[in-house]
């Protein structure tokens, strides 16, 4: 595939391999995948099949054993500052929320702005706008432990949206939710994808969740299979 074709994709991987020394296992084997901009991609597969590893590799949190990863045609390995790359381009949503207890929803969102002594007012406004978009603005000053599971996941999504990333990497975002809340969260992600054109790569093994994605791929024992 040429460079122009790569640039049309938010992510492309070529013969991606990840070998974990600690467990002496291949988490991914020769994974080649193209994710066009604005796509909602579902990644399914059994536990331990390598789904989350793929997300962490795309985010630059893990280094591949071999193969290439491209972000909008740009090789990830050439990025000097992967932290900045993540901050600007990627939003993360996790199964376990990972919100910091005792802090409010708004404070949790603004943790990423702590590198400045004073959080800029513009960032606070931005954060509030995301909370409003996700219908939890009323809860902005509520400590996160008081929120329901669904509200917590919305807070996580709001946190992921703060820098208006081009892509959201969601690792089992409905894993800790009941079916109604899971549906709500999927609708929220679908809305973000449709209205903002944000690409979503969603790792799951929930059949229902797959229904919201444009395309589903399966990872079994580290190998990619199209559905």
């Amino acid at each position, binding site marked *: 595939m040429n460079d122009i074709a790569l640039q049309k994709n938010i992510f492309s991987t070529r013969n991606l391999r990840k070998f974990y020394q600690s467990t002496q296992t291949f988490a991914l084997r020769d994974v080649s995948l193209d994710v066009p901009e604005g796509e909602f991609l579902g990644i399914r597969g059994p536990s331990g099949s390598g789904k989350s590893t793929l997300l*962490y590799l795309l985010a630059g949190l893990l280094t591949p054993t071999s193969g290439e990863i491209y972000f909008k045609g740009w090789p990830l390995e050439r990025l000097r500052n992967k932290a900045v*790359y*993540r901050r600007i381009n990627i939003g*993360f949503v996790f199964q376990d929320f*990972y919100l910091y207890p005792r802090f409010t929803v708004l404070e949790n969102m*603004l*943790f990423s702005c702590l590198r400045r002594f*004073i*959080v800029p007012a513009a960032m606070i406004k931005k954060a509030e706008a995301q909370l409003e978009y996700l219908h939890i603005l009323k809860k902005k000053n509520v400590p996160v432990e008081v929120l329901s599971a669904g509200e917590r996941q919305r807070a996580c999504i709001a946190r992921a949206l703060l820098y208006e990333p081009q892509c959201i990497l969601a690792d089992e975002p409905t894993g800790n939710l009941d079916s109604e809340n899971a549906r709500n969260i999927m609708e929220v992600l679908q809305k973000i994808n449709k209205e903002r054109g944000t690409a979503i790569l969603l790792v799951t093994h929930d059949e229902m969740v797959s229904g919201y994605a444009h395309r589903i791929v399966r990872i079994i024992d580290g190998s990619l299979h199209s559905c």
Partner: protein
Amino acid sequence: MNILHFFIKDVFRKKTRAFLTICGISVGVCVCILMLGIGESIKNSFKDVYGKRQIDIVVQEKDQLSILLSKLDAGIATEIKKLPSVVDVSAALLYIHKIKASAVPVFGWEPDSFLFDDTELLQGRRPIVDKKEAIVGEALGRSLKKDNTNQIKIKGVTFNVVGVFKSTSPFEQYAAALPLSDLQAAIHEAGKASFINVRLKPEYRIETMMENITRELEIKFPFIAAMRADAFIAEKTQFIVVGEQFSFLVGLITIIAVALGLANTMVASAFEKRKFLAILLALGWQKIEIAALFVFEALIVAIIGGAIGIFLGFKGTGYIFGLTSIQAFVPALNVVFVLKIVGMILGSAVVAAILPIWMTLNSDPVETIRSE
């Protein structure tokens, strides 16, 4: 909304832990100040006696270790004053008198000496020769007032207190001063002085010139030892310097204990926050920012604990001195001294943050996120 808000809220999220850590730091810093402050106060008081009076040379009896044992002919002062380099001299007799359990330095000064001239009287007037009068330092004045007396009795001779003077030297705060001849008569040391203070003309206040003058004096008066005032202070405070080094060592060990205690808290905090920190990395924080986060957290705890410790330390030193016979040694809030302590506290905070930083930066964020 600012970074301090976040950090303070984070530190006090675990109230008991934060409270105990701050207590530990406060006690450590307090001990450090007590140990260092005592030596510092005594040394400064020596310096004040000579430095602030612009005394350039001190003359005492040759081969005499202590000025308390030094005995000179007070008449030498007149001879020294005749030297072209000398602007003023003042013979002084020092006697340590006991009032209750306290040692009170009693100075005999020549009535027209610059020592009297430079003494700031808060109340009353100068003592008059042959009238059995004395002036006392502020602290001694307070002590006498408490005992409802206005007299001091030296070797059976009663002196009426006619004035109270202020001195920056704690030595003199708890001292008495009277005319030289009156003290000589009271302690049966007629014509004697313990030491002679010499002031030089400004153009002679050069190290090499002062050295030459001291040599000249020792040749002219073979039974005296003449020293530059700064060398004299250094020699007389040598025992304090040794004590100070010991205090510094104890202080250093205390600060290391403080740093270790703080490091323990920081490691616990890092362990507790490990997932959160991994998430921060996933959200685009850089490792250097995570390191700064720990340093900042340690600094907040150290600064709060340190501030309480500094307050308690100064109050405590004053209280301890108050309990002893050297009541006058109330440590002054010396800027350099406080800066030294603040530096130690901040340094210990940075040291305390190293281990959690190392732990966090060496852990794999993905493994941390995935771990149960």
